[in-house]
């Protein structure tokens, strides 16, 4: 007798349904459907999405809901992931010390050392002493050049200048004797006057050599070893710039300060360890390793990390009704990153990429409410509904339908909020694990490191290969190949780095090169997905050894990414593992593994 | 004035009192698929018995509206309805293509005449065909036909 069965997989972001006709132990697949998950996975709000997915799948299979025998749901436990990104270092320069910003077009070349004098006071400057002229806003470039030329004519040794507007090249072009000029210094009024100062500009395509070198600074300002040690952060901050200004003031003070972002307390394996978040990602992950399996993670109240973990806990409380005190953080992923921050004490709106740590945390609860969902689904559809199996086990079953796979098999489900692994060994025993951090963290890293204000743009960078629009009729893809067009490309992409979306090239608002953007994108994916793949697989692998795995099948939305599967496969290749993207039933791709697994398990149970 | 084409034969004699047809003369109205207006109910929609084509206007209905417009001395409006009745047979994309072809300097005289012929023979649309022919003539006189690429 044929019975109509639907497997439903409620995931973090999508709900998948798979309709099949089951007769004895044989299964005929009739169709699938995909909808958004309603509410947080594992909560009664899922009913709506589940019912919808079932209905759609039935419509696709041209079957009536009246013929439905049973709906099989996965045992889905709520997984909530939280993301936070906190700066852990900050360059603070007392406002009279340094201008480290990097204008696009400084003027002149070389190093000029002298005393700072305002252009308004240049008339009174004596010919005895070299001067660095500070030009406030409101001055026209023609007038500035005329004043500087006049002063030079009077015998005043004008050796450098600092300008408020973007005028450096213009002014230098009008000087009889060129000098190094740094421009676009917005807070030029804060430059202290009557102080010893140095201005350095490197030729186009080069970086400064003197002011970015501690001993260079020492030579320029005649510093003793103790003073040299003090200003070394200045040199470090100026490294890589094409131009810089350093003003030596008696009270000058530069600190490269670490901001306490809080301490993470990790409990597990009978131990409780603490690690400072500002110690960086490696330190955190090392500590985490020592307490695996993690029982809980907490942060001190009032610190950034404490706040973030509390929020994750609160969300879970809202969802499950379980008291916050009972909720455990079961995994943490820390990633080193950079966030663009305005330099405190900078005079030109300098933005520095400050060190930061991104944290993803994940909670699970034992209190699944899937039975409620099952009851509600049964009522809405007028048929039986039961919990057909545990997610991880079902995913493995589904993955096993990928042609060319066999037990023992491990699956990696690359999702939005978490990365999940499960292993089915030869004895039919299944182990599963969820680790924090997945696609959303990648988007966040890309957005932050490229200083993209729009999350959608970061998402687009993540999902699509890059190219540079070199003319209206051709683009150069990130792999170097050139593509020509017969119709001109739209003007808004001209000369831009673009993401090659299916709708066409989409401009990325950045000055960075294709290579730079690509590096950041791949690095973000590597630091999240590759790290998590290894981490999660180690947790399910026999004796924690990846060598004990034979087949790894990638599932989930991010398994459709154009490079993540390759990155993971490359990382696993050294361990002798066969890794590839799942192809459920040989035609579904990496989707629908759990739903199909549910149906298969059901068929086995019935026939067995 | 050359706006009013002769009304087709055997049309009901409509006047202002018949308007609105959807209220007063439902008996005369049919969808292009032959359904009466009363068939377009929510129940029918829910049952999936109504398709998008059921919500289009039939050429016969446009002719009725043309008669109504004439009855209130709006011959140009009536002429527009008669052209419209003819265009109901032309697919959407082709209607847009014809419109684009009528833009200034978009088509040669021959191209316009081909469109007119197509309208007349393929779609039995003599009134529209005449409009296109008229355009071809005026465009030639006013230098609005497609120019040789310079």
């Amino acid at each position, binding site marked *: 007798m044929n019975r109509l069965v639907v497997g439903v997989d409620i995931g973090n972001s999508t709900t998948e349904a798979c309709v099949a006709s089951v007769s004895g132990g044989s299964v005929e697949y009739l169709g699938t459907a995909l909808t958004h998950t309603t509410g947080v996975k594992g909560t009664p709000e899922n009913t709506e999405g589940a019912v919808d997915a079932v209905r759609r799948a039935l419509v696709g299979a041209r079957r009536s809901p009246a013929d439905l025998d049973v709906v099989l749901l996965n045992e889905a436990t709520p997984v909530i992931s939280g993301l936070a990104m906190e700066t852990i270092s900050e360059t603070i320069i007392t406002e009279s010390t340094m201008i480290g910003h990097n204008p696009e*077009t400084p003027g002149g070349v070389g190093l000029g050392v002298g005393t700072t004098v305002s252009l308004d006071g240049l008339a009174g400057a004596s010919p005895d002493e070299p001067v660095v002229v500070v030009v406030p806003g409101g001055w026209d470039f*023609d*007038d*500035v050049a005329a004043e500087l030329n006049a002063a030079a004519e009077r015998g005043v040794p004008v050796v450098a200048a600092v300008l408020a507007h*973007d005028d450096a090249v213009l002014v230098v072009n009008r000087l009889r004797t060129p000098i190094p000029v740094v421009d676009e210094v917005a807070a030029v009024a804060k430059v202290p006057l009557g102080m010893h100062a140095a201005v350095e500009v490197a030729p*186009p395509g080069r970086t400064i050599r003197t002011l970015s070198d501690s001993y260079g600074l020492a030579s320029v300002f005649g510093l003793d070893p103790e003073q040299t040690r003090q200003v070394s952060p200045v040199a470090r901050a100026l490294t890589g710039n094409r131009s810089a200004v350093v003003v030596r003031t008696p009270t000058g003070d530069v600190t490269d300060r670490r901001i306490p972002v809080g301490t993470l307390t990790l409990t597990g394996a009978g131990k409780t360890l603490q690690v400072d978040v500002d110690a960086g990602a490696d330190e955190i992950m090392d500590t985490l390793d020592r307490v695996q399996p993690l029982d809980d993670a907490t942060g001190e109240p009032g610190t950034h990390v404490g706040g973030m973990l509390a929020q994750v806990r609160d969300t879970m409380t809202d969802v499950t009704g379980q008291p916050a005190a009972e909720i455990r953080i079961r995994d943490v992923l820390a990633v080193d990153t950079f966030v663009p921050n305005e330099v405190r004490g900078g005079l030109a709106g300098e933005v520095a990429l400050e060190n930061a740590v991104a944290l993803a945390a994940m909670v699970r609860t034992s209190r699944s409410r899937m039975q409620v969902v099952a009851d509600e689904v049964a009522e809405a559809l007028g048929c039986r509904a039961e919990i057909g199996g545990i997610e991880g086990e079902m995913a493995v079953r589904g993955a096993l339908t990928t042609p060319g796979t066999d037990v023992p098999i491990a699956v990696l489900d690359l999702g939005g909020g978490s990365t999940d692994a499960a292993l089915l060994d030869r004895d039919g025993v299944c182990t599963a694990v969820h680790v924090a951090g997945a696609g959303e963290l990648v988007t966040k890293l890309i957005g932050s490191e490229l200083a993209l204000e729009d999350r959608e743009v970061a998402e687009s960078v993540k999902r699509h290969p890059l190219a540079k629009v*070199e003319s*209206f009729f051709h683009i150069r893809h990130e792999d170097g190949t050139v593509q020509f067009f017969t119709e001109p490309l739209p003007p808004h992409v001209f*000369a831009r780095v673009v993401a090659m979306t299916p709708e066409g090239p989409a*401009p990325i608002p950045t000055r960075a090169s294709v290579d730079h953007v690509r590096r950041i994108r791949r690095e973000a994916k590597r630091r999240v997905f590759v790290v998590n793949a290894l981490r999660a697989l180690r947790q399910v692998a026999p004796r924690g050894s990846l060598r004990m795995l034979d087949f790894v099948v990638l599932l989930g939305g991010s398994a459709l990414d154009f490079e993540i599967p390759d990155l993971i496969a490359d990382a696993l290749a050294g361990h002798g593992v066969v890794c590839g993207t799942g192809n459920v039933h040989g035609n579904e791709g990496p989707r629908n593994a759990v739903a199909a697994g549910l149906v298969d398990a059901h068929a086995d149970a019935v026939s067995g | 004035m050359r706006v009013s084409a002769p009304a087709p034969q055997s049309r009901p004699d409509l006047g202002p009192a018949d308007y609105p047809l959807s209220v007063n003369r439902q008996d005369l109205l049919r969808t292009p698929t032959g359904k009466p207006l009363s068939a377009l109910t929510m129940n029918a929609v829910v049952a999936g018995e109504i398709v998008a084509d059921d919500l289009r206007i039939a050429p016969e209905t446009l002719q009725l509206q043309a008669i109504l417009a004439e009855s209130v001395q709006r011959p140009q409006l009536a002429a527009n309805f008669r052209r419209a009745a003819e265009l109901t047979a032309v697919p959407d994309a082709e209607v847009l293509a014809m419109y684009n072809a009528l833009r200034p300097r978009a088509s040669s005289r021959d191209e316009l005449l081909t469109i007119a012929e197509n309208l007349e023979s393929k779609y039995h649309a003599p009134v529209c065909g005449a409009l296109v022919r008229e355009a071809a003539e005026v465009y030639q006189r006013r230098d609005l036909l497609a120019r040789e690429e310079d």
Partner: protein
Amino acid sequence: MSAPAAVRTLTLKEIGPAQRASRPDEVVIAVSPAFAETFTRTIVDVPHAEVIRQVLAGIEEQGVTARMVKVWDTADLAAIAHTGARLSGSGISIGLLSRGTTMIHQRDLPRLSNLELFPQSPLLDAEVFRRIGSNAAQYAKGESPAPVPTRNDQMARPRWQAKAALLHLKEFECIVAGRRPVEVEPVISRA
């Protein structure tokens, strides 16, 4: 403390018929028939001398050279800018109408398209003209500058629409039909 404001005048010295150049590091500035002749200021009284000085400065600051042409046979901004782009060695041009309306164009684009358009002439001041020059030069270098932010003002219509129409008509009066574009040298002098 502020800089002395200088009054400057602009004259366009004719050099000869405008030619297509091959140096890739130039931007062509193409101006309308009445520019710096019948008219000396934009719709909001920015002197043409200042417009050109700022546009040239924006280009120079980027290390790019500029060439200027006068277009005589049209007052249509897209046509003027595209004419400039086709003469430009880099393919990049800036088109300017007397009232201030400005466009950055590129040779390979269709005439009616553009790289950046600044249609609201009443909102263009010296700073914007500087940035337009700077952006055009960056396009010429193959860089991708962030577009100059365009401002919008719903109340520009009641204040400026009619004056813009009047200036447009006056510009039309200055068209010399059939006259080819002329290369000009901008001479800016202090009054």
